[in-house]
Protein backbone atom coordinates (compact mmCIF):
# COMPACT_ATOMS: atom_id res chain seq x y z
CA UNK A 1 0.00 0.00 0.00
CA UNK A 2 1.79 3.09 -1.19
CA UNK A 3 -1.12 5.42 -1.75
CA UNK A 4 -1.05 9.09 -0.96
CA UNK A 5 -2.35 9.55 2.56
CA UNK A 6 -2.52 13.31 2.55
CA UNK A 7 -5.59 13.81 0.39
CA UNK A 8 -9.19 12.78 0.88
CA UNK A 9 -9.12 10.71 -2.31
CA UNK A 10 -5.90 8.99 -1.26
CA UNK A 11 -7.32 8.20 2.15
CA UNK A 12 -10.49 6.77 0.61
CA UNK A 13 -8.40 4.53 -1.69
CA UNK A 14 -6.37 3.33 1.27
CA UNK A 15 -9.49 2.00 3.01
CA UNK A 16 -10.24 -1.70 2.52
CA UNK A 17 -13.87 -2.77 1.94
CA UNK A 18 -14.01 -3.88 5.57
CA UNK A 19 -12.69 -0.45 6.69
CA UNK A 20 -15.43 1.28 4.75
CA UNK A 21 -18.16 -0.98 6.10
CA UNK A 22 -16.98 -0.48 9.68
CA UNK A 23 -16.72 3.30 9.27
CA UNK A 24 -20.12 3.53 7.64
CA UNK A 25 -21.67 1.31 10.34
CA UNK A 26 -20.22 3.54 13.06
CA UNK A 27 -21.51 6.69 11.36
CA UNK A 28 -24.97 5.18 10.89
CA UNK A 29 -24.82 3.91 14.47
CA UNK A 30 -24.08 7.41 15.73
CA UNK A 31 -27.06 8.75 13.81
CA UNK A 32 -29.25 5.96 15.21
CA UNK A 33 -28.02 6.75 18.71
CA UNK A 34 -28.77 10.40 18.09
CA UNK A 35 -32.33 9.59 17.09
CA UNK A 36 -32.82 7.09 19.93
CA UNK A 37 -31.38 9.39 22.59
CA UNK A 38 -32.96 12.50 21.10
CA UNK A 39 -33.83 14.74 23.99
CA UNK A 40 -37.50 15.50 24.26
CA UNK A 41 -40.14 16.54 26.73
CA UNK A 42 -40.31 19.16 29.40
CA UNK A 43 -37.96 18.36 32.24
CA UNK A 44 -39.03 19.26 35.75
CA UNK A 45 -35.73 19.31 37.60
CA UNK A 46 -31.97 19.34 37.23
CA UNK A 47 -30.29 16.70 39.37
CA UNK A 48 -26.66 17.40 40.26
CA UNK A 49 -24.43 14.46 41.16
CA UNK A 50 -20.79 14.34 42.24
CA UNK A 51 -19.20 10.92 41.87
CA UNK A 52 -22.69 9.45 41.48
CA UNK A 53 -24.09 10.93 44.72
CA UNK A 54 -26.91 13.44 44.40
CA UNK A 55 -25.76 16.74 45.92
CA UNK A 56 -28.52 19.07 44.71
CA UNK A 57 -31.87 19.00 42.93
CA UNK A 58 -32.94 22.22 41.24
CA UNK A 59 -36.57 22.69 40.21
CA UNK A 60 -36.65 24.21 36.73
CA UNK A 61 -39.74 26.34 37.29
CA UNK A 62 -37.77 28.61 39.61
CA UNK A 63 -34.76 30.65 38.52
CA UNK A 64 -31.80 30.46 40.83
CA UNK A 65 -28.26 29.30 41.32
CA UNK A 66 -26.44 26.93 43.56
CA UNK A 67 -22.78 26.32 44.30
CA UNK A 68 -21.74 22.74 44.93
CA UNK A 69 -18.32 21.36 45.80
CA UNK A 70 -16.94 19.15 43.03
CA UNK A 71 -13.89 16.91 43.38
CA UNK A 72 -11.61 19.68 42.15
CA UNK A 73 -13.35 23.00 42.68
CA UNK A 74 -16.65 24.63 43.57
CA UNK A 75 -19.08 24.60 40.63
CA UNK A 76 -21.86 27.14 40.14
CA UNK A 77 -25.01 25.85 38.44
CA UNK A 78 -27.71 28.23 37.30
CA UNK A 79 -31.35 27.69 36.40
CA UNK A 80 -32.82 30.39 34.22
CA UNK A 81 -35.94 30.26 32.06
CA UNK A 82 -36.39 26.45 32.41
CA UNK A 83 -32.80 25.85 31.25
CA UNK A 84 -29.78 24.83 33.28
CA UNK A 85 -26.14 25.72 32.76
CA UNK A 86 -22.84 25.61 34.56
CA UNK A 87 -21.72 29.21 34.95
CA UNK A 88 -18.52 28.79 36.93
CA UNK A 89 -16.01 26.03 37.50
CA UNK A 90 -12.27 26.12 38.09
CA UNK A 91 -11.60 22.94 36.09
CA UNK A 92 -8.82 23.13 33.46
CA UNK A 93 -10.75 23.15 30.18
CA UNK A 94 -14.12 24.41 31.43
CA UNK A 95 -15.91 22.15 28.97
CA UNK A 96 -18.88 22.13 31.35
CA UNK A 97 -19.19 25.93 31.09
CA UNK A 98 -18.67 25.88 27.32
CA UNK A 99 -21.39 23.25 26.88
CA UNK A 100 -23.83 26.07 27.56
CA UNK A 101 -27.47 25.68 28.54
CA UNK A 102 -29.50 22.46 28.41
CA UNK A 103 -33.28 22.42 28.45
CA UNK A 104 -34.51 18.98 27.27
CA UNK A 105 -35.28 15.99 29.41
CA UNK A 106 -32.51 13.39 29.44
CA UNK A 107 -29.77 15.87 28.48
CA UNK A 108 -26.68 16.10 30.62
CA UNK A 109 -23.82 18.47 31.32
CA UNK A 110 -20.69 16.70 32.52
CA UNK A 111 -17.67 18.17 34.31
CA UNK A 112 -15.18 15.34 34.35
CA UNK A 113 -12.45 16.84 36.59
CA UNK A 114 -15.15 17.50 39.21
CA UNK A 115 -16.86 14.09 38.68
CA UNK A 116 -19.99 16.21 38.33
CA UNK A 117 -23.02 15.54 36.15
CA UNK A 118 -26.09 17.75 35.80
CA UNK A 119 -28.98 15.69 34.44
CA UNK A 120 -32.38 17.00 33.41
CA UNK A 121 -35.12 14.72 34.67
CA UNK A 122 -38.87 14.45 34.32
CA UNK A 123 -40.89 14.68 31.13
CA UNK A 124 -41.29 12.16 28.34
CA UNK A 125 -37.64 11.22 27.96
CA UNK A 126 -36.78 10.81 31.63
CA UNK A 127 -33.68 8.63 31.75
CA UNK A 128 -35.32 6.46 34.42
CA UNK A 129 -38.08 5.47 31.99
CA UNK A 130 -37.05 3.20 29.09
CA UNK A 131 -38.37 5.08 26.08
CA UNK A 132 -38.32 1.93 23.96
CA UNK A 133 -41.46 1.10 25.94
CA UNK A 134 -43.05 4.53 26.16
CA UNK A 135 -42.20 5.38 22.56
Amino acid at each position, binding site marked *: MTSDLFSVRGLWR*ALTPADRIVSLALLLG*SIALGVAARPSGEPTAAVVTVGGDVVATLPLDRDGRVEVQGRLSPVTIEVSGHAVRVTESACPHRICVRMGARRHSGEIIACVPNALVVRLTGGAADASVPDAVTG
Partner: protein
Amino acid sequence: MTTRTIARVALLVAVATTLAIAESLIPKPLPWLRLGLANAVALLALVRLGARAALAVTAVRVLLAGLLLGTLGGPTFALAVAGGAAALVAMVLAARAVPPLSWLGVSVIGSAAHVLGQLAAIGALFGAGRSVLTLAPWLLATAVPLGVVTGAIVVAVDRRLEAW
Protein backbone atom coordinates in the same frame (compact mmCIF):
# COMPACT_ATOMS: atom_id res chain seq x y z
CA MET B 1 11.03 -8.67 25.66
CA THR B 2 14.47 -8.08 24.26
CA THR B 3 16.50 -5.04 25.32
CA ARG B 4 15.91 -3.63 21.85
CA THR B 5 12.13 -3.92 22.27
CA ILE B 6 12.25 -2.37 25.73
CA ALA B 7 14.19 0.59 24.33
CA ARG B 8 11.67 1.05 21.54
CA VAL B 9 8.72 0.80 23.90
CA ALA B 10 10.37 3.40 26.16
CA LEU B 11 10.84 5.71 23.18
CA LEU B 12 7.19 5.35 22.19
CA VAL B 13 6.12 5.98 25.80
CA ALA B 14 8.06 9.24 25.76
CA VAL B 15 6.50 10.31 22.45
CA ALA B 16 2.98 9.32 23.55
CA THR B 17 3.28 11.13 26.88
CA THR B 18 4.59 14.27 25.22
CA LEU B 19 1.76 14.25 22.68
CA ALA B 20 -0.86 13.60 25.37
CA ILE B 21 0.32 16.64 27.32
CA ALA B 22 0.67 18.79 24.19
CA GLU B 23 -2.89 17.91 23.14
CA SER B 24 -4.25 18.81 26.56
CA LEU B 25 -2.66 22.28 26.24
CA ILE B 26 -3.86 23.15 22.72
CA PRO B 27 -7.07 25.18 22.63
CA LYS B 28 -9.73 23.48 20.53
CA PRO B 29 -12.64 24.85 18.51
CA LEU B 30 -14.99 22.36 20.12
CA PRO B 31 -14.20 21.67 23.75
CA TRP B 32 -14.54 17.89 23.67
CA LEU B 33 -12.74 17.45 20.36
CA ARG B 34 -9.43 15.63 20.47
CA LEU B 35 -7.31 14.22 17.64
CA GLY B 36 -5.98 11.39 19.80
CA LEU B 37 -2.31 11.43 18.88
CA ALA B 38 -1.38 9.63 22.10
CA ASN B 39 -3.60 6.74 21.05
CA ALA B 40 -2.00 6.87 17.60
CA VAL B 41 1.33 6.05 19.26
CA ALA B 42 -0.30 3.02 20.90
CA LEU B 43 -1.42 1.97 17.42
CA LEU B 44 2.11 2.47 16.09
CA ALA B 45 3.36 0.20 18.89
CA LEU B 46 0.75 -2.38 17.86
CA VAL B 47 1.79 -2.12 14.19
CA ARG B 48 5.54 -2.37 14.80
CA LEU B 49 5.91 -4.31 18.03
CA GLY B 50 2.67 -6.15 18.79
CA ALA B 51 -0.10 -6.20 21.37
CA ARG B 52 2.08 -6.48 24.50
CA ALA B 53 4.11 -3.44 23.49
CA ALA B 54 0.92 -1.50 22.75
CA LEU B 55 -0.38 -2.41 26.22
CA ALA B 56 2.89 -1.26 27.81
CA VAL B 57 2.89 2.03 25.87
CA THR B 58 -0.74 2.76 26.76
CA ALA B 59 -0.46 1.85 30.44
CA VAL B 60 2.75 3.78 31.10
CA ARG B 61 1.60 6.77 29.03
CA VAL B 62 -1.70 7.03 30.92
CA LEU B 63 0.16 6.85 34.25
CA LEU B 64 2.84 9.37 33.27
CA ALA B 65 0.40 11.83 31.69
CA GLY B 66 -1.77 11.58 34.83
CA LEU B 67 1.26 12.25 37.00
CA LEU B 68 2.47 15.20 34.93
CA LEU B 69 -0.96 16.78 34.43
CA GLY B 70 -1.89 16.30 38.09
CA THR B 71 -4.96 14.20 37.34
CA LEU B 72 -3.58 10.93 38.76
CA GLY B 73 -6.20 9.08 40.79
CA GLY B 74 -8.96 11.61 40.04
CA PRO B 75 -12.02 11.41 37.80
CA THR B 76 -10.16 12.68 34.71
CA PHE B 77 -7.63 9.91 35.22
CA ALA B 78 -10.43 7.32 35.49
CA LEU B 79 -11.69 8.46 32.10
CA ALA B 80 -8.21 8.32 30.58
CA VAL B 81 -7.87 4.73 31.84
CA ALA B 82 -11.34 3.78 30.53
CA GLY B 83 -10.73 5.36 27.11
CA GLY B 84 -7.19 4.04 26.76
CA ALA B 85 -8.13 0.50 27.81
CA ALA B 86 -11.21 0.39 25.56
CA ALA B 87 -9.24 1.68 22.57
CA LEU B 88 -6.39 -0.76 23.15
CA VAL B 89 -8.60 -3.85 23.49
CA ALA B 90 -10.68 -2.81 20.47
CA MET B 91 -7.59 -2.19 18.30
CA VAL B 92 -5.93 -5.49 19.27
CA LEU B 93 -9.14 -7.35 18.38
CA ALA B 94 -9.70 -5.31 15.20
CA ALA B 95 -6.16 -6.09 14.02
CA ARG B 96 -7.19 -9.77 13.96
CA ALA B 97 -10.45 -9.12 12.09
CA VAL B 98 -11.49 -11.22 9.11
CA PRO B 99 -11.98 -9.85 6.44
CA PRO B 100 -8.92 -7.79 7.18
CA LEU B 101 -9.08 -4.17 8.21
CA SER B 102 -6.22 -1.88 7.25
CA TRP B 103 -4.50 0.06 10.02
CA LEU B 104 -6.82 2.93 9.11
CA GLY B 105 -9.84 0.76 9.94
CA VAL B 106 -8.18 -0.43 13.14
CA SER B 107 -7.58 3.23 14.05
CA VAL B 108 -11.24 4.11 13.42
CA ILE B 109 -12.34 1.31 15.74
CA GLY B 110 -9.85 2.41 18.39
CA SER B 111 -11.07 5.99 18.13
CA ALA B 112 -14.73 4.98 18.48
CA ALA B 113 -13.93 2.61 21.37
CA HIS B 114 -12.05 5.41 23.14
CA VAL B 115 -15.14 7.63 23.03
CA LEU B 116 -17.50 4.83 24.08
CA GLY B 117 -15.20 3.77 26.93
CA GLN B 118 -15.15 7.31 28.26
CA LEU B 119 -18.92 7.64 27.99
CA ALA B 120 -19.39 4.31 29.78
CA ALA B 121 -17.15 5.58 32.57
CA ILE B 122 -19.14 8.81 32.88
CA GLY B 123 -22.37 6.81 32.98
CA ALA B 124 -21.10 4.28 35.50
CA LEU B 125 -18.94 6.41 37.80
CA PHE B 126 -20.63 9.80 37.81
CA GLY B 127 -24.25 8.74 38.02
CA ALA B 128 -25.23 9.84 34.53
CA GLY B 129 -26.52 6.39 33.57
CA ARG B 130 -27.84 6.00 30.07
CA SER B 131 -28.19 9.78 29.71
CA VAL B 132 -24.59 9.68 28.43
CA LEU B 133 -26.09 8.44 25.16
CA THR B 134 -27.27 12.00 24.45
CA LEU B 135 -23.57 12.90 24.16
CA ALA B 136 -22.71 9.87 22.00
CA PRO B 137 -23.83 10.92 18.49
CA TRP B 138 -21.50 13.89 18.03
CA LEU B 139 -18.61 12.19 19.75
CA LEU B 140 -18.95 9.03 17.64
CA ALA B 141 -19.57 10.89 14.39
CA THR B 142 -16.35 12.90 14.83
CA ALA B 143 -14.40 9.89 16.14
CA VAL B 144 -14.69 8.15 12.77
CA PRO B 145 -12.98 10.79 10.56
CA LEU B 146 -10.47 11.59 13.31
CA GLY B 147 -9.69 7.88 13.50
CA VAL B 148 -8.95 7.84 9.77
CA VAL B 149 -6.65 10.85 10.13
CA THR B 150 -4.67 9.44 13.08
CA GLY B 151 -4.52 6.08 11.30
CA ALA B 152 -3.06 7.79 8.22
CA ILE B 153 -0.45 9.49 10.40
CA VAL B 154 0.48 6.11 11.89
CA VAL B 155 0.78 4.48 8.46
CA ALA B 156 2.86 7.41 7.16
CA VAL B 157 5.20 7.23 10.16
CA ASP B 158 5.38 3.44 9.87
CA ARG B 159 6.57 3.73 6.25
CA ARG B 160 9.37 6.06 7.28
CA LEU B 161 10.55 3.77 10.04
CA GLU B 162 12.09 1.19 7.71
CA ALA B 163 15.35 1.30 9.60
CA TRP B 164 13.70 -0.03 12.75
